[in-house]
Each structure stands twice: as C-alpha cells, then as structure tokens.
C-alpha cells in the first residue's frame, strides 16, 4: 500500500548503448515510437551525461488529472498505467507530461507509455529494460512512499522537472580521477 517502485539510474554507468530502448521496443513490439529514450546533455563540468528516461511513475502524475477520459491509473505498487480502450488521442497527456512519456502509437493511433512491464513484475521479474542493461546502470528499487516524498533532485545535477514528484532515483555522475605516474629518474 505504501510502497513505490522506482527506476534507479546510475549516470556513471550509462554508456549510451541504447540497449534499454531497443529491448523495450523489441519486447513490446513497438515501431515508430520509443517508450524509453537515452538523452545526452552536458552538465556544469562539460562532460556528456547520458540519462535513460521513460515514464517516471510520478507521485502526482499530471497525466491523471489532465486526461478527459480518466484513462490513467496508479497501481498500489505506484506504477502509472494507461488504459487505451477509451483513448481518443486528444494528445493532452502527450503535451502535459514534462518527461514526454506518453506518445501516440502510430499503429494504434492511441496513447502508449511505459507500464514498467507490469506483466513481468507480477511474475516476479524485472522490467525488460532493466534486465537487458549491460552495465547495470538501470535498476529498479522499491521505496516507502513517505521516503520518496522527501527526496528531490537537489543533490544531483539533472535537468528534470520535479513538480510532479517523479519516482526515479538518480545516482550522480562521478568525475574520474587521473593519476599521473612520477617520471623515472
């Protein structure tokens, strides 16, 4: 009841291989859209940072309040899912989501978004993107909802909107240290 499943993203480990994107598309049979995207940006230290992002299963999802058909729901494990049966592709959620998570699936002409592979979760398996991440940069954690509420992105340098309380845990990129050998006499 009071738990929330979250993606954990280790920015030091992501190598921009996009296996998460591809495995998601392959598993869900998607073409023409991506539920997950790896975005690259530069932080203050001008080092490229890769952030793999999809639906953040927010605590206060804006898609829920904006959908005129009330098609979004949040499960007891915190996963936000979309029921496409009544979707009329009005695109309100597509524009409102600060993370661009809902997208129009060109095949069905209805909204499509990450559902954290709930069918796999129900079987005790990890989401397919997490399972296939070659560097373990992407993970899944379960946290107490109260703890989630007190966490913000102040400590990490990530350009992410936090007004919806996105449920992702970001581990900041560590800057590598270079050790120079002393010259031999």
């Amino acid at each position, binding site marked *: *009841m*009071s738990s929330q499943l979250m993606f954990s993203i280790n920015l030091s480990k992501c190598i921009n291989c996009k296996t998460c994107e591809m495995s998601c598309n392959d598993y869900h049979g998607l073409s023409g859209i991506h539920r997950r995207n790896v975005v690259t940006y530069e932080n203050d230290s001008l080092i490229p940072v890769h952030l793999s992002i999809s639906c953040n299963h927010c605590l*206060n*999802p*804006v898609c*829920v*309040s*904006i*959908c005129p058909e*009330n*098609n*979004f*729901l*949040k*499960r*007891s494990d915190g996963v936000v899912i979309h*029921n496409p049966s009544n979707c009329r592709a009005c695109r*309100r959620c597509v*524009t*409102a989501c*600060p993370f661009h998570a809902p997208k129009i699936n060109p095949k069905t002409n209805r909204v499509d978004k990450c559902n954290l592979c709930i*069918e*796999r979760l129900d*079987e*005790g*398996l*990890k989401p397919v993107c997490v399972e296939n991440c070659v560097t373990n940069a992407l993970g899944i954690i379960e946290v107490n*909802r*109260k703890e989630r*509420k007190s966490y913000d992105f102040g400590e990490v340098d990530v350009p992410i*909107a*936090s*007004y919806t309380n996105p449920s992702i845990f970001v581990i900041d990129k560590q800057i590598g240290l270079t050790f120079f050998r002393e010259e031999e006499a």
Partner: protein
Amino acid sequence: MKDALQELLPLIPLDRLKFLTSLPKQLLYYETIQEELPKDWLEKPTLIIIVDEEEWIKLNDKEVANQLIQDPNLIAVIIGLETEVPLQEDNVHLYRSCQLPIVQVADPSSLHIFEQKSKPVYSQISNELAGIMNEGFTAIATELAKGLETPFLYLDENNHLLWQTGTETELREANRWLNTHFRELEGMKESYEGQIHDGFELYPIHIAGVVSQGILASAKLVDWQKRMVDKLIGLMALLLQTEGMFRQQQQQLQEHFVYDLLYHKFESQKVMIKQAKAWDWNLEIPHHLLLVHVKVTDELMDNMDWLDEMVLFIEEKKSHMEERLIVLPFEDQIVVLLEDGQSCTISERNRHVRTVAEQIEKELSNQWPNCQFLIGIGKWYKNTTFLNKSYQEANQALKFGQAWFENRNIFHINDLGALRLLIHIHQEILLDYSEDYLSVLLESDRESGTELIHTLKVYIQHQGVINDVADALFIHPNTLRNRIKKIEEMTGINVQDPEEFMNLMVAVKILSFLNL
C-alpha cells in the same frame, strides 16, 4: 503409492506456499522423489523437489523447460527455497499452459512431508496464525487464488464487497454472479452445506459468534481445494476473534478502497458506490475533495499519532456541522470529501467549498496553533469515479498555490488561473518564453545580487500597490520605486501599460512554476 500431492499441501502452513503455476483438480500421485532436474526421461511418476539455487535457475532454460513439459512421468516441481524465485515470463507461460504444477514451499523444514516414510505431522495452527498475521490475509488469499484458479470475494455482514482477488475475467464473472444472486446470500450464510450454486459458493466466516462475513469462491472446486479454502477461512475467523484485529482488518480493507478511490479509476461507478456503502459513505452523490497538508512542528512530530488525532478532531467537529463530510488520513495528509449534490452555479459551489475549508482550517489552527494548515481543493465532478482526478488537482493546487500565493492557506484549483494552463505546455517553450522577458533581470540577480525577480513577484502579488509591496519587502517605498524604474529600463517594459505588464506577469509566473 504415496498420498496425492494435493492431499499433502494442506499440511504446510499457508503463508509458506507460493503457486508459480496452478494445480490441476485431479489428484496427482507420485512414486519417487528426485532432488535434481532430470537429464533423461523419467521412468516412474516422480516429484522433483529442488533445494539448490543452481537447480531452479535451470527452470529458466528453454531446453530444460521443453523436456520437463513433455515428460509424462513428471508429476510436479516443488521449490524448497526461502528466497524469491523469479522465473522468466515465457517459461512460466509455457509451464502454465502445459499445466506443469510448480509450487514454492518457502519452509525447507516442511519438505519431509513429501517423503515416503515421513515423520508424523501435527497441526501447526499457532505457527500458521503467526504467518497469516505477518503476511497479511490479502496476500495469502491472493496466492491461494492463483493456485486454485478461483477468485475470492470478501463480503461483509451486509454482503457488500470489501475486497477481491483473482484474474480480471474471473472477477468480472464473480461480480456478475454476485449481482444476480445477492438475495440468496443470506440463506447461504445460515447453512454451509447444500447451498451450492452453479457458479459460486459462499464460505461463511463467523467472528466471535457476533458477525457473519463471508468469502465467495468458485463452486467448481473439488474436495482438496475446498479443504484449502476452509483452512484459509478458519485461520481468518481465528484471527478476527479479537475486536482489535477485526478493526485492524476493516481498516486495511478501507485503506485498499481509499487508495483505489484516489489513484485508480473505478471502471464501474456501481461497484464503487456499493463498496463505499460498507463504510456508510454515499458516493452516489457528488463530492468535493479537499486535501489538508499539515506543516508539523518538531514537537508534534514526536507524537506518532498526530495525524490520527487531527482526523478524530475533524470527525468530532463535523457532528456540529450541517455538511456531510468523510474524513480520511492518506499518505501523511488528510483527505476530506464534502458531499455536494445541490444544483447551483459554479461560483456558488466554489464559495460553499471554500467556506467549509476555511472553517476546517480555523478549527485546526485554533487547536494546534503552532502548526500551519494548507488546504488544496480539486474540481467538483458529477461522476464520483473522477475523484482520482480531483485528488491530483488538489495536489497541484497545494503545490502551485503555496509557491505563488504566499500569504494564503486555502487554494482552489480554479485560483491558479493561467498557472493551470502552463501544465499543458512543453517545458522548453515555457523556459524560452520566460527567458525572453526576464533574462536580463535574472543575470543581474545572479551577478550583482539584486532581487529584481523577487521584487517583481511581490509587486504582482500585491497588485502593484507601492506601500503594500514595500511593506512585504521590508524596504522604503522610494527604494521600491527605484527598483521598478530599473526593471522598466532593463526590460524595456512599461509596468503601467496593462498589455506589456501582463506579458511580464505571465513570464514571472512561469518562472516560479519552473522553479518548483
């Protein structure tokens, strides 16, 4: 020949059983036990008991799976490990469709019951009770429903649905049956035997000889399955003998319902209304949703029950009010549902809800003067299945309202005005817009430590009344006039021109929204 597998399972505590696939109805007899997955075809009917982690990992292997499902002598696989056993979905699907029973017994000490000459087994009722208290009745019932392929519908003493588990199709069928046979349920509770219907059967739970609740399950269950359900019911009844436990269980079921109400969308309003009646809530009538957020003092934080005390306080006060309220604690906040089925104009409706919110805020502030109470109000919807939207709107009203209206305590979603529109627009577009107007002021604030953006924000909040703005900023009115003049020079905008000023105002609002 040994006992059938299904006859032995009831000897294991229910909380230790996890059904990875369902069990067939007909009894499964085995002659030998093996602790490793077979490399060749089995010669005798065999039960495989896996106690080694490396062995269960093999169950995820495609080739192993193909061999296992084709072996006619493989009776079932028992996994005797305490840790969680994740199996790949494809393989689970394969095992399930080929009806290979896989059961996890998370209690290795119970595995001896499968042996040919096992030690005598005694009732472990106290252990089982402890197990059911730890795991929770709902988790165990959900697991058993998977193993027996039946839905379970928990009905209260008035036969109102409190909780349910099962697959979507099973639940749909069960609810349909419940609607048509509602009147016959009372008779079914009186006598346990001989009241079996075609579709479903009611198992009564008599609690302390006072209350009679029940669980509805498929009527197609065979004897061994009924014994398992009976065991579940017996444990449940024992657990609920104490009033405290009974209340706790009712509270848990209520929590499930409230979560569904605020985060889920009920597909059927009828089901929602019926379920809500279990707590005497009339959700046939539309309700306003108010969300009370408490800024608690450190002193009060030490008291673990502060939220419950506040809920009780509102409950007590509502008895003196004309309005009908439902008060609930939810995720460290208080949710108040205010009944409002009157036909009136939007402004009258908003005024009414605001008056009630002010009353609640006043009462709470009087009782706890050191705490700050903020109330967010969502939109009013005629259809109560939209309360989940109203809850999110109340959250938004709280969040944006606090950032913009610093001196207010009550925020209606409609108060947000243009801020509400901003939610619909891409963040990048908003950022570009605000930077077009405010980049010079931001740069000056950053580099010279001026407070031009803050000054502008307070200027807008106080409708440009110089004395009020100066008071709020703790500066002299002439200092303020100088700052405004500087802002005009830097941005090239005349704050006295309504059209130009409106653009600046929207840009400032966007900035405060983006900084949340």
